[in-house]
């Protein structure tokens, strides 16, 4: 579904900060990829390159056989099919939960208002927040915000969901509710790419775990392989330090 070929990303005026140093990866439909690794390893940058929130310096990304790094492709159309959930939720604070969920479907998918609201209610029910439809983001807890953010991304009926450390900004007791929503989503067969530090989640849900370090994918494998028998010394070191 997503194919990455020779992806490079450099920051700075002269490209002095090299964050991604040649990444090749293929993600199948229905896969649940969890990306782990030390901070500064390029996990988030890699994820954000997938929907071109970061502009890759070099390399190709194919999404359903369409080259999204090509200047000619309409990235906005493709982004509609790739939901994204952010570490800091990024809900629209001036709009109610309902409006957060219906804005994009109405404006971009040309859904009529009633239909969009019906869909929004279904999604809110799925994330367990049907009673908060008329609340504003400031009235929600972190976990609730993140669940709304997931629902918002789902409202566009995406084919892939990208999660950028969705639980890192949450209080520990709120992490569970977000992860359970993500699990539910995984069970429904959604293709997911998730950057996270929740190893439990990775073990339970992931079909494949990528260990990223120093701008490359140092190791890739099933959760059992990675967590019980890591091959790369960096992976070993990383897992030791966090477990």
């Amino acid at each position: 579904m997503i194919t990455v070929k020779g992806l490079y990303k450099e920051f700075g005026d002269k490209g002095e900060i090299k964050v991604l140093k040649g990444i090749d990866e293929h993600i199948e439909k229905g896969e649940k990829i969890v990306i782990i690794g030390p901070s500064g390893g390029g996990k988030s940058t890699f994820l954000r390159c997938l929907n071109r929130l970061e502009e890759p310096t070099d390399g190709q990304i194919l999404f359903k056989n369409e080259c999204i790094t090509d200047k000619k492709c309409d990235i906005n159309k493709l982004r509609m099919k790739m939901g994204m959930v952010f570490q800091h939720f990024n809900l629209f604070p001036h709009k109610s939960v309902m409006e957060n969920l219906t804005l994009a479907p109405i404006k971009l998918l040309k859904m009529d208002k009633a239909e969009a609201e019906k869909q929004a209610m279904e999604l809110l029910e799925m994330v367990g927040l049907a009673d908060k439809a008329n609340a504003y983001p400031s009235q929600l807890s972190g976990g609730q915000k993140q669940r709304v953010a997931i629902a918002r991304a789902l409202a566009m009926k995406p084919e892939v969901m990208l999660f950028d450390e969705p639980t890192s900004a949450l209080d520990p007791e709120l992490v569970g509710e977000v992860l359970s929503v993500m699990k539910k989503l995984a069970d429904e067969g959604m293709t997911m790419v998730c950057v996270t530090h929740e190893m439990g989640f990775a073990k339970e849900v992931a079909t494949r775990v990528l260990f990223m370090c120093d701008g490359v994918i140092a190791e890739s494998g099933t959760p059992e392989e990675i967590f019980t028998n890591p091959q790369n010394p960096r992976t070993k070191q990383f897992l030791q330090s966090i477990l």
Partner: protein
Amino acid sequence: MNNKKKLITTKRVFLACLLLAAVAFALYVVIAQSLASKTSRELTAEQAQSIVNERLALLPKVQADAAVYLTNNMSVEVKSVTQSDDRSLVLDCDVATYDLYGTVEENLDKYLALAYKIDHERIEKKLPKANSTIIRQNIKDEFNKDFEKAGKVEKSLELKIYEVEENDFQLYLSDEVIDALYGDYKKAVALVKDAQYCTIDGQQVQISNNIPYKNGIVECFTLNNYDSKKPDTSIPAVKWLNSVKNEFIRNFLDKDNGRPRYMYIVDGLKNTILVTLSSLLIGIVIGFIVAVIRVTNDSTGALDFGAWICKLYLSVMRGTPLMIQLLIIYFVFLLPAGVGSIPSAIVCFGLNSGAYVSEIVRGGIMSVDKGQMEAGRSLGFTYMRTMYHIVLPQAFKAVLPSLANEFITLLKETSVAFYIGVADLTLGGLKIRSITYSSFMPLVAIAIVYLILVLGLSKLVELLERRLRKGDNR
């Protein structure tokens, strides 16, 4: 909460200071007034006569005529002359006190009014529709009544208004005009105002609008409110209060062409509000466009040319004085194109405030979390649509107080619009000033109107802000 309390206390202290300042100012005015009247010197009869002679010698011939007429024909005995300041002489006669102002027109009015004693109300009651002969007799009688001590007026009263020096002829009022005057006062004023020709010594003479003797005629007829009361002998404080009252009446309630003078301010206010609101609207539209272009250029590198134009526009608008911009836009560009002064002012103030609004809005856009743009983009919105649906509404809220300040500044800045002839609030006050020759009341009045507008607006914005803040906190 504590902060709020502190703020309220500060506010109260501030208001108290303002109040104190106002009281101090009023006191100053009272004291200054009474001091001024105390310092006026009493002159001996000889000194007074010499000052009168001096002044009379200084007067142009047209006024001297009237003065000489007074002293000779009426035999007014000058009791004393008081000089209260450089420009004002008070002439104390047997029967009344008259101010002899140094300024030309004022002086002329008084003399003429005195000389012809056109007090139409009194005459109207006695002789509703009289012919010119009766009028002349009546005027004589009026004079004699007022100047009993001075003896009978024997010479016939010539209704001479002006002696025009350059052309050496005299201007008389025709009988028709006088009839009209006593038959229907207002009609006469209109008649004289609209008159294009006068009969002078049997010859028809054209009166153009900008020559002074036409104004002289008009003013002669409009001087119905000439004050021939006895001198005010009440104590200084009451005198001052009376003078304030009279000033107020003269500046705001007296009528020109049937409209009380405060209407100049009311009409001006309408124009000021029209200009301010319209130009603010233009300013906000321009400001948002310019800000979006500049932010887009900063963050994506697109729209290079647009950003260059915007920078040029900003430097010009913020680097030159507003008044110069106003004069250039009106006299150089729009007046030749046939655009009126109000639309020109709106265009100019709109362009000018657009420059300031754009900087405010740019700050507002940059204060919105970057994540908002990313969230919008990740849903599939284009850059511009994310801007429109998500970033700008939040930016607008963030900059509302600054925008309100800009609006208030703009409201005050429109006061220069009178330079291109916009009849705004300021010009309303200046008009009254040019009619009554008093500065204090008209100018303070417009200042107060501006102040009330500004305070009202601040309050409104406060309410709006509070409403917007509801349900929205990050």
